[in-house]
């Protein structure tokens, strides 16, 4: 097989997966040209990551919820409510930041487990149970902000989560204008990626399994390294990695490994693929339901804190429509409502696609009404593409 044949075959086989990356690339290219490069500037890209954070973590949790054939409509106002709880804990209970963050995350897990109880134990459809949650958390958010209205958070450490950047080395003369720690992290990430790819390939060869040809392997490695390089360089050109970006990347990495490399992930996809078969294979469907909704609740709490920190306050409308943005991101990212299919990395890309559209159209000065229509059209186009490629049965 020649190299070109292998490349096209590879592309064809993974068209669904690559389709999303290609779409993202096209969107980036389009906005970069349309805004005379403003879109791709370091400052804007860095900003874009920060805008995306609170939706991205929700989308990751939502992916798993949809994979096990459920839905969670309550996450938006739950995030808003828990953001307000964090604000109250900081300003009225006077708890330190390091206590508030885990405390609120635990509250989130608790809220998720209550949803799971409704779904797994009482057999209420998730749509209904979480619609009730949507109402309840909205009411709860209004109640806790009733007296004061917006709660201002005067805590710089907490606010850094949504606005701050990782510190840099105090070497003003070395590589001026670039964020050195970010470059270092990018370099480390690239090295780690190369090493792990090589060792995994070597192991496969040891087992006598099929691997891609050497040329193909090297090309894809170079491609990945360049990609990491470009992203790192762009980010390093402004203030470096933001804390939000660190958190989103961390959550994505953890969930990616959890879903693809562990038995827990396998169990989740088995339950989504065929719950009866999963149960008869010794997997407890209700346990998986608790875990998935619990994780959704925790990520809602995280999302709420990211948002509150970014605004440096808890508002009465925080969390409005987050749930639908998260669901849209997950669907753009290729999750299937029939269950059992969908990747967390896909949903992250989906979130980036959606936020890029908003950001790019804002820069172009496009009216908000048009923005909604374009985003709706992209959502439909993404799902149509997904269904069409799935039908081809690859």
């Amino acid at each position: 097989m020649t190299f070109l044949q292998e490349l096209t075959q590879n592309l064809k086989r993974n068209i669904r997966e690559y389709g999303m990356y290609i779409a993202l690339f096209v969107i980036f290219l389009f906005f970069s040209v349309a805004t005379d490069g403003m879109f791709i500037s370091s400052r804007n890209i860095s900003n874009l990551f920060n805008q995306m954070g609170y939706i991205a973590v929700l989308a990751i949790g939502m992916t798993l919820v949809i994979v096990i054939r459920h839905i969670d409509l309550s996450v938006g106002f739950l995030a808003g409510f828990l953001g307000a709880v964090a604000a109250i804990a900081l300003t009225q209970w006077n708890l330190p930041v390091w206590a508030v963050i885990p405390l609120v995350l635990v509250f989130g897990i608790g809220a998720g487990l209550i949803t799971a109880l409704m779904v797994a134990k009482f057999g209420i459809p998730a749509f209904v149970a979480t619609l009730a949650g949507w109402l309840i958390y909205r009411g709860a958010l209004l109640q806790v902000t009733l007296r004061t209205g917006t709660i201002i958070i005067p805590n710089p450490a907490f606010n850094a989560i949504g606005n701050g950047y990782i510190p840099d080395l105090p070497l003003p003369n070395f590589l001026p204008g670039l964020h050195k720690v970010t470059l270092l992290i990018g370099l480390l990430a690239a090295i780690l990626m190369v090493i792990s790819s090589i060792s995994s390939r070597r192991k496969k060869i040891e087992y006598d399994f099929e691997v891609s040809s050497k040329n193909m392997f090297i090309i894809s490695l170079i491609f990945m390294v360049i990609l990491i390089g470009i992203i790192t360089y762009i980010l390093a050109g402004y203030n470096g990695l933001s804390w939000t970006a660190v958190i989103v990347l961390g959550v994505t990495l953890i969930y990616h490994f959890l879903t693809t490399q562990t038995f827990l992930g396998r169990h989740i996809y088995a339950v989504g693929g065929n719950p009866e078969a999963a149960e008869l294979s010794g997997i407890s469907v209700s346990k998986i339901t608790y875990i998935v909704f619990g994780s959704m609740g925790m990520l809602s709490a995280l999302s709420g804190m990211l948002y509150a920190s970014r605004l440096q306050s808890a508002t009465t409308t925080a969390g409005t429509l987050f749930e639908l943005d998260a669901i849209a991101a997950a669907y753009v990212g290729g999750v299937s409502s029939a269950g059992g299919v969908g990747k967390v990395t896909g949903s992250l890309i989906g979130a980036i696609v959606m936020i890029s559209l908003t950001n790019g159209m804002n820069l172009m000065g496009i009216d908000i009404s048009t923005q909604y229509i374009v985003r709706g059209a992209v959502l439909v186009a993404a799902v149509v593409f997904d269904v069409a490629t799935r039908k081809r049965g690859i």
Partner: protein
Amino acid sequence: MAVTAITILTRFDAQKILGENMSVPILEMKNITKQFPGVKALDDVSFKVNRAQIHCLVGENGAGKSTLMKVLSGVHPYSSYEGEIYLDGELQTYRNTYDSEKAGIAVIYQELALVPEMMVYENIFLGHEIRKGINVDVNETIKQTVALLKKVRLEVNPSMKVKHLGIGKQQLVEIAKALSRDARLLVLDEPTSALNETDSENLFVILRELKQEGVTSILITHKLQEVLDIADKVTILRDGQSVTTLDNNNGEVNEDVLIKHMVGRSIENIYPDREKKSKDEIILEVRHWNAYDPRLERQILKDVNLKLKKGEILGITGLMGAGRTELARSIFGNTDGYRLEGELVLNGEPISFSSPHKAINAGLAYVTEDRKGDGLILIQDVKANITIANLERILTRGLFIDANAEIRDAREFRDSLDIRTPSINQLVLYLSGGNQQKVSLAKWLYVDPDIMILDEPTRGIDVGAKYEIFTIMNQMVDQGMSIIMISSELPEILGMTDRIYVISEGRVTGEVMTQDADQETIMRYATM
């Protein structure tokens, strides 16, 4: 001379001669070739069906029967295949199933296309309602439904919801539905695979009656005895080619001939030999087992007592609905949520399983009756299906799946069970029935159980694959496993087991040693 010859022939033969000589066949498919990416599903197949006959279509799984019928019914539209279809001598160019229905072809699939929540008459006239203005003319619909139900000898209230009918009756409703659309050519895809013997016979009586009225039937089936019973002609497909068409009315056809054509060689013995060496040691005992379904407020199992010996194949048989599957599922973690009474004794120790997980840990495995519904995860690949019930085997640090070990193990099972798949990364969805069943077996062998419960292990599987499944079962017993084989097919129960329990209406009505049993004895117990 020719005239006198016809007069002394039976009415039936006359019809045949008329059909063959004096009028065109009702259906003729000429040189059909259908290609899918990478496979030729049909290779120059020709298929001719005479008017008012019952024509059986047999062949192993993957031989092309379903594809041929999909070409006929327009699922694969005209121009997506090569060759021609003639109905009554006219070239047919269906763009979709709607076109073929209009032309008088009705296909009844294994998975019935009825709406359970709707009434019988609504189902029958679904999509071509009798109207009065913009309303449905209910009275006229019911009147016509009564007439149609009479034709298929179904005595039910037309206003009953379909979900309250048994599967056999539902099938008759489907046939009535086809007749309501003036179908002249009925295609039935394995109609009896989910029916008990009474319902199957009833179905055949009706097909014969319809034949007298001029309705032609094409029957796809795996049960060769049925072919011999009912077919006028039988066409055999193998590897996408039409091997031959035989006439069942002149005595040239028997089971051996059919098998020989189907597999391309003769199978001496349908049931592989096994040295029977069960010990007297009892591995599992079920004592005074009662199960109640709290939703239906009905007792499903009544004082069931049975013993499984180490190293034997124990058969459990009975009619459809006797409680065989319910028994297996109530033991294996009780996922249906029955209220249970009684005792389970495993290796002399009393035990109970509150979930399948616990049953698996105690050394049990259960291959379900419905492998697509609750056995396999169709949208996942072969390797994931094999390892899912025992991921512990390939975990590192108690959490991470060793992907390489998984590939290695899955390949091992693919080779040892001869699972025919292009790759272990293939989705199970795309495998044939026999190979799917092998994946089910592999999955449970991967657990390395002491006791394997096999529920209808050969349902919907062709002769060749059946033989392979039986061989695997024998190997399992040789390695010391004990098997409970649940089946409604008496020949395979008699061919494979050491000992048989017969269940009827939730109770054990008979226990026989296989060597002393025959079909009559078992049927007597089964109808007690």
